[in-house]
């Protein structure tokens, strides 16, 4: 099941029309682009356009904002890959790149079809989870929070699980959010 373009359009009007919201998504775009010499608004524009044009479909299993993040992350990832393969690529060609390869690890974009994953898929998910944990090898507190989130914990439950107070938890979650935006499997 997918969110419709009309639903996305309505979400845009309600959630991406204020100054604060725009700043929010520019922050995320910049985190995803990191060293790429592309403006963060280009990434936001491309992701929004591709969804509105029906070139990317939205997984109804997760909220629309998580989908937008997933699409931005996927596009940024294809730009990083393309730039790595062809460093001399023009900005215009790079921005028009969109390599949708049906990567099963793009779990935010691929609807869960409720079938049991194959052993290969299960292994791939577990390896990806381990790779994400390895990003925080220097921060055992972040690894604990990540484990708790993976188990579905939030708020007080998560803080208790990670043995942190609310303020410490917020700081660690911010660190996780920033580092994960920069995570790419092929690096």
């Amino acid at each position, binding site marked *: 099941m997918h969110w419709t373009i009309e639903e996305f359009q309505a979400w845009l009007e309600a959630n991406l*029309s204020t100054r604060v919201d725009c*700043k929010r998504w520019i922050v995320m775009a910049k985190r995803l682009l990191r060293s790429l010499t592309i403006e963060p608004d280009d990434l936001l524009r491309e992701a929004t356009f591709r969804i509105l044009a029906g070139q990317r479909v939205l997984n109804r299993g997760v909220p629309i904002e998580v989908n937008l993040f997933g699409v931005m992350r996927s596009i940024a990832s294809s730009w990083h890959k393309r730039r790595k393969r062809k460093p001399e690529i023009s900005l215009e060609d790079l921005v028009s790149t969109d390599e949708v390869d049906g990567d099963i690890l793009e779990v935010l974009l691929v609807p869960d079809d409720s079938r049991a994953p194959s052993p290969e898929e299960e292994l791939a998910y577990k390896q990806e989870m381990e790779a994400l944990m390895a990003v925080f090898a220097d921060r055992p507190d972040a690894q604990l929070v990540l484990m708790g989130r993976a188990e579905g914990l939030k708020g007080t439950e998560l803080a208790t699980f990670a043995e942190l107070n609310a303020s410490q938890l917020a700081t660690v979650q911010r660190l996780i959010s920033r580092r994960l935006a920069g995570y790419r499997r092929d690096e």
Partner: protein
Amino acid sequence: MSKTPNARTQLESVWAATVEDLMGMTESELDAELKELGIDPEAAAQRGKRAVEEATSASRALQRAMKRQRMQQAREVPGLVRDPNITADEARVQLARLVAANDAKLTLAARNRNPGDMDDEEVLALYWQVQELSR
């Protein structure tokens, strides 16, 4: 703790947490990070707004262009070439077969008529109308 979610759900939860944190950021936190990233917060707000507006108008333009293309393609479908060798008698025979078969291409009125009772002009008009519908 309840049952451990499967590996896919675990991954989904971790990525969703990244977005939840973003959605929970206050304006002052966003401004601080933008400055840290070397971006003027006010310029970021304007550029973000413009990006969404441009994406919206570009997608509308694309949809209009696709609509025009579909209309153009529909117009370019050549009309049915009417074979001059089809005589009124031949048309009557074929229509009679369709009537006998109660074919859905015939209107209810046409199905209740006997092609043998129609004049040449009428039977040929109905025959070619059915051919158009069959395309």
